[in-house]
């Protein structure tokens, strides 16, 4: 997997670390010379100094052959142009964009960039969720918030503890996608017995999110 990342210093650095741990081949495009040498010293990624929204710079970064482009610049208009050039000029198979203004998620989709994530929305929903309940975290809205992915930490007092999955009546359009037990990730079957020390990854529509949390943890949410 070869990916081009267009991002500022810190974000580029942490993305590099994450992707390189997964053995991705990473190229970073950054338009600040100092940031570039800073990144070059700290990561083994290929660093390209230049404006990622310039066709020439994208080409130098190998856009013709990469598998993915991640546009994570601080300004939405730059990300839009990066994505459009990657798609129209270089035919990159997978293009993902950060949007800063949440309104732009919709706008980008209308302009043909379907794969976006909004940091603002992610953060605000995370914060809301953390405030709600300490046992529930990592709420990720997917598909414009039509689906939420939540991590739930159970206790021995949780109603789900000690029950087999088939005995737990999950509300409609919700499911326990994964059970995290010690270092293992288990995709549960009906016979899987949930323990009080498990963490569960729950996928649900937002309307049934609270009901699902109540059934699993017993805590009323919201």
């Amino acid at each position, binding site marked *: 997997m070869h990916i081009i990342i267009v991002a500022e210093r810190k974000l580029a650095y942490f993305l590099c670390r994450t992707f390189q741990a997964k053995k991705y081949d990473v190229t970073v495009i950054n338009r600040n010379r100092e940031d570039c040498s800073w990144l070059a010293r700290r990561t083994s990624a290929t660093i390209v100094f230049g404006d990622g929204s310039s066709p020439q710079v994208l080409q130098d970064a190998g856009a013709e052959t990469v598998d993915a482009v991640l546009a994570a610049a601080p300004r939405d208009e730059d990300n839009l142009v990066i994505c459009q050039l990657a798609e129209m000029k270089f035919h990159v198979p997978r293009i993902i964009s950060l949007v800063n203004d949440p309104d732009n998620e*919709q706008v980008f989709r209308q302009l043909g960039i379907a794969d976006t994530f909004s940091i603002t929305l992610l953060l605000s929903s995370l914060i809301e969720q953390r405030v709600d309940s300490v046992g529930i975290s990592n709420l990720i809205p997917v598909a414009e918030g039509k689906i939420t992915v939540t991590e739930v930490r159970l206790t021995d007092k949780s109603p789900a503890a000690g029950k087999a999955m088939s005995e737990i009546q999950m509300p409609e359009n919700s499911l326990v996608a994964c059970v995290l037990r010690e270092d293992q990730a288990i995709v549960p079957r009906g016979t899987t017995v949930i323990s009080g020390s498990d963490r569960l990854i729950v996928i649900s529509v937002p309307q049934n999110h609270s009901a699902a949390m109540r059934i699993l943890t017993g805590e009323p949410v919201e």
Partner: protein
Amino acid sequence: MVAPKQLYAVIAGCGRLGSYVANKLSARGHSVVVIDVDETTFDALSSEFSGYRIEGDATEFRILQEAKTDKADLLLAVTHEDNVNLMVAQVAKKVFKVPNVMVRVNDPMREQVYHDMGIDTICPSIVAGDAIAAIAGALAFPAE
């Protein structure tokens, strides 16, 4: 004689080009809204300018809404930043369905890609370059 239609024009960017066009369109009796992030640029508008000024970032959807872009006959994206212009122009064309959209793009390579996409782009370097080449051509072949 038929009276010319009064146009509603939204101009993103009130620099040298934006303010020049805004003054001109306004003087001809068209209604004009200019948008710029920097309100001091509005000083370049003439005292006869009768349009509206909006201080804000035209890449923000809400600012274009405020400018009633959905009613516009014409949108000009002429800030000094190519990417701002390209985004504003596409939002105007595809989301607000503005029938006439023109964009200034300084980088000729970027211009080509968007021109191929069916967006009316103007690249000042190409316009000036062609004019200069034409003059040079006339000097080289004085008989023509």
